[in-house]
């Protein structure tokens, strides 16, 4: 059991009194890549939000254990410090807060959590330079407000850049491929692969096989109506690409 990075057990969550997650079970080990697929509105972003601690959601049952820590008891910031990262489906624009101040605050907050001294200005800039290179993020974005006026592709690169800086143990990439052209997709996926080690793990939420051509999943889950209704190997994604979700929907809806 020790080598389980994330264990989600019968997780239920609601928003505005409406139950969205209806008993999620998931086990992720270091080094693994899990893909989560599923029709629009099935609860994929809700699951990532709940794991990251989005206060809009209320956990109504179940548990989530992150390398032995009760994840749901932590604040969003402490989840981050403990090694969880969420790449947002819709990265948030923050007018007036520059990327560089934002990243400095993030880096130094983590260092404070780990009882390390803040980075010197030159070490910080060096770190930014190194990490930007991973996703070929344009330097000019550093002085701009967080995500403000970024193109769709720039926003997604910016997410992976932040992931590179924070070096999480578990990354959840919520439709990081959407809005990317073919070249950007290759760069972003390449970045994710560069950051992959045998100690960390990735959850890839996507609608398309093309991302999984670059980021090879070990396990593929289908989320539907707030439950993981099907789990398989990489071939499951190919099957979905070919046949769509109808067969799964029918199967599940008939059982109900």
């Amino acid at each position, binding site marked *: 059991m020790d080598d389980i990075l994330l264990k989600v057990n019968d997780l239920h969550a609601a928003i505005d009194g409406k139950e969205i997650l209806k008993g999620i079970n998931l086990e992720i080990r270091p080094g693994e890549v899990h893909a989560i697929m599923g029709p629009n509105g099935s609860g994929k972003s809700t699951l990532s939000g709940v794991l*990251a*601690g*989005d*206060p*809009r959601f209320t956990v109504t049952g179940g548990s989530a254990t992150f390398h032995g820590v009760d994840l749901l008891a932590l*604040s*969003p*910031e402490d*989840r*981050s*410090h403990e090694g969880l*990262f*969420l790449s*947002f489906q819709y*990265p*948030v*624009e*923050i*007018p*007036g*807060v520059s990327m560089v*101040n*934002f990243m400095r*605050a*993030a880096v130094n*907050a*983590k260092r404070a*959590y780990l009882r390390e001294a803040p980075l010197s200005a030159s070490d910080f800039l060096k770190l930014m330079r190194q990490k930007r290179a991973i996703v070929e993020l344009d330097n000019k974005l550093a002085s701009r*407000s*967080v995500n403000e006026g970024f193109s769709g592709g720039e926003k997604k690169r910016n997410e992976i850049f*932040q992931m590179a800086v*924070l070096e999480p143990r578990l990354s959840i990439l919520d439709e990081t491929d959407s809005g990317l052209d073919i070249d950007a997709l290759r760069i972003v996926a390449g970045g994710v692969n560069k950051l992959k080690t045998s100690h960390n793990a990735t959850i890839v939420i996507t609608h398309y096989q093309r991302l999984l051509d670059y980021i090879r999943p070990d396990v593929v889950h289908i989320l539907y109506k707030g439950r993981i209704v099907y789990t398989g190997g990489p071939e499951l994604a190919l099957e979905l690409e070919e046949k769509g979700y109808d067969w799964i929907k029918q199967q599940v809806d008939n059982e109900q």
Partner: protein
Amino acid sequence: MNSNSLTQYLDLYAHHREAIDARAPEAFNRLRPAASEALRRAARLPRKGDEGYARTDMAAMFAPDFGINIMRVPAPVDVAASLRCDVPNISTLMGVVAGDEFRPTATLQRNLPDGVRLMSLAEAARREPQLVEAYLGRLSADGDAPVQLNTLLAQDGVLLHVAAGVQCDKPLQLINIFNAGVPSMAVRRVLVVLERGASASLLVCDHSQRSDVDYLASEVTEIFLAPGAALDYCHLEESTPRTARSAALFAALDADSRLGLNGTTLTCGATRNSYAIHLYAPGAEARVAGMVIGSDAQHTDNDILVCHHAPRCHSSQLFKYILDDDASGAFRGLIRVDHGAAFTGAYQTNRNLLASTRATMHTEPQLEIYCDEVKCGHGATTGQLDPQALFYMRTRGIPEAEARMMLMQAFMADVIDTVTLPTLHDRLRMLVERRLSGDRRGCGDCAAACTNSLQ
């Protein structure tokens, strides 16, 4: 408490009229009869709910029995010397105003450029009565009761005069100080005259050195900008919960003159700032900005009138408030465009953040346009910090308190940016950051608090 707080001041004037006049120059004294008459007609000070005073009770502000230094007992000599509260500390050209008494720093007169006068208004009126009498009271004559009360009792204050064509490049600074051990009211007049083509920038800071004593500042400022003159005026209040402020600023702008105003309230008890800016001749420009950071039971009211009388003038108003705890705020901004004021550009923005559910904001944006060829716009919003932005920052490990602070600082960025003087801009940024980080010491325990936190 007196049922009509105005009465005590009218009585004071009635009983001490000769004493007051004897200790003030004619430029002040000659204005008193009209002020007295105006107050008799007004009968009382504005109460909460009166026109223009929707949320601010001036009668209550003036109700306590404050001491007024009508006998001109000098403030302790060491005020200027002991003053370590050099908050922005940007200027060598500094004067301290203890109550209403101007005290130049030792080096001020030596360092003032030729053609620039920064001095006691009473002294100026004695030395050059024509100069002061030509201006003093001209703009305030039609002011409301709090303004008339100031005129009735004022005996001193500050004159800034810049001669024609003189550019005073170094910023000037005034520090208004309360430090008496008993409840005190300062009745202060400020007169600013920039002759043709002159320019200057003035920073005025309000401090109360004792946090355990009630103070009230009554301040009336009149600003005259001759054609082509340019003034940047920044006011920064960092007083205490037991300090109240009733201030009115009038400005008359002649052709192609420019006024940049920034009024910032970081800490106070109850503050009312009213501004009446008149653009009298073509090409004049007024940029009025302000910010308020309110916490505890702080109350801050900014009331702005910008009046376009002539064609091709431009004005903007940008006011932002962040209110926490039980703080309350009020904003009224009126743009008035007269018949003759074609090709006017006038804009107004008021945006407010409520950081607590108990904080309240009252906003009244108003436009009165009596002319066709104008471009005007206004907008007002009151809301909370963006919860999605807050969550996003927290998922990156930024602690909630810090994330909130960064968002609040970002919210104020454009108001801070209206202050163009680089040194002052940076200091203001720092002071806002310090204030938002929860440092509410203000200047109650002057020296230590300010200088330490600015290291």
